[in-house]
């Protein structure tokens, strides 16, 4: 079998990181093609449930990215997001879900090079970590196995 290629889902805000990722492309900077970008109005809109759904549906890693603090298009969406991610990481860590697979970053519309670097470093790290088997095993367990497990 060929080498493992991680599937990465990126939840990005429309105003900064999405434009930043666009700039990466127009600047002809090459970066890993493993990432699937999902555009959101704002980081404040990114519900933690979406991250769980991404893992459940086969993502090996996640990137969450938006405007730098004080640069939010809606003034405060990213500040709220920041607090949410602080709490989310603590909870996930307490439950044993691997937070090293989730990258949080601030990438502005002018940071095309930074976006490429964020994606590339996440993909390199995930390639070493391998597929997120333990979470997917839990998701894919059948009813029969569930009963046996009990």
């Amino acid at each position, binding site marked *: 079998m060929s080498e493992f290629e991680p599937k990465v889902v990126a939840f990005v805000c429309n105003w900064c990181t999405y434009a930043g990722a666009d700039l990466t492309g127009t600047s002809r900077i090459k970066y890993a093609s493993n990432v699937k970008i999902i555009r959101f109005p704002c980081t404040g809109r990114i519900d*933690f*449930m979406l991250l*769980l759904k991404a893992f*459940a549906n086969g993502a090996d890693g996640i990137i969450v990215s938006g405007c730098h*603090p*004080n640069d939010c298009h809606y003034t*405060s969406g990213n*500040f*709220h997001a*920041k*607090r*949410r*991610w*602080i*709490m*989310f*990481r*603590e*909870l*996930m*860590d*307490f*439950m*044993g*879900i*691997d*937070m090293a697979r989730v*990258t*949080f*970053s*601030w990438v502005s519309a002018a940071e095309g090079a930074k976006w490429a670097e*964020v994606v590339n470093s996440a993909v390199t790290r995930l390639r070493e970590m391998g597929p997120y088997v*333990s979470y997917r095993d*839990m*998701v894919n*367990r059948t*009813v029969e196995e*569930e009963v046996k*497990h*009990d």
Partner: protein
Amino acid sequence: MTNLVSRAKELLENKTVDVVIGFETGPTGLARPAFITDPVKTDKLVFDDRCSHNLAVYLTKHEVKQMGKTAIVATLPIMRSIMMLISEKQVDPENIVVLGISTDGKLLDIADISVMKGYIEKSDLKNPEKFKTPLDELSKLSQKERFSYWQEVLSKCIKCYACRQACPMCYCIRCTVEVNQPQWIPVQANTHGNMEWHILRAMHLAGRCISCGECGRACPVGIPCHLLTMHLTDKVYDYFKVYAGTSEKMSSVLSTFEPDDKESFII
């Protein structure tokens, strides 16, 4: 507890309140919540170690609100719940009389919300001692061990939502688990869906949990789901230096922010 009974009787006789929410002894000898509207029946009121329910859960219920002005027997966690409900505009402080009970079981003289606030501020607001050991033990395990621990305990969850019903802060009329477009939480009880439900519950209670431990006590299959919210209570204090239910004006941690919130994981 003669003080409590006479005070409750007085309140009902003077028509200061229409209903007293407290505890009575049920047919099996356990304590259960009681709703007393008749001053003669206030003799039924008890308060002792058996009384563990968080009575504040009833304050947001439509049926109880209809009964009129309410007096409520309240230990520290219940007082903090009331404070939190007032801050979230779920309860009108004008409609509440608090029959506060101190940690050693004495009736407190709580005339209004500011007195209650003063009492809460003087109290120990950390997670109760009996929950600290399991929290510490879990934190000591490796990530893998924690994941298998939670998978194992959560596989037992039958999605009865008793944890939600027992919690005074879970008052949403339409909870996210009842939303089916999109279906956030699978209807059937499987480990993965159960975990998603408990993550959702803990996240929605982050910075709002007042550490009463009722969710874990209410669980019919013994899932220590209170540890999730209590862990976050600890972390909220570590990061933001606040405890829930300490002021009638506070907004919960996740609905507000400070521009200089510290974190070290965002690149």
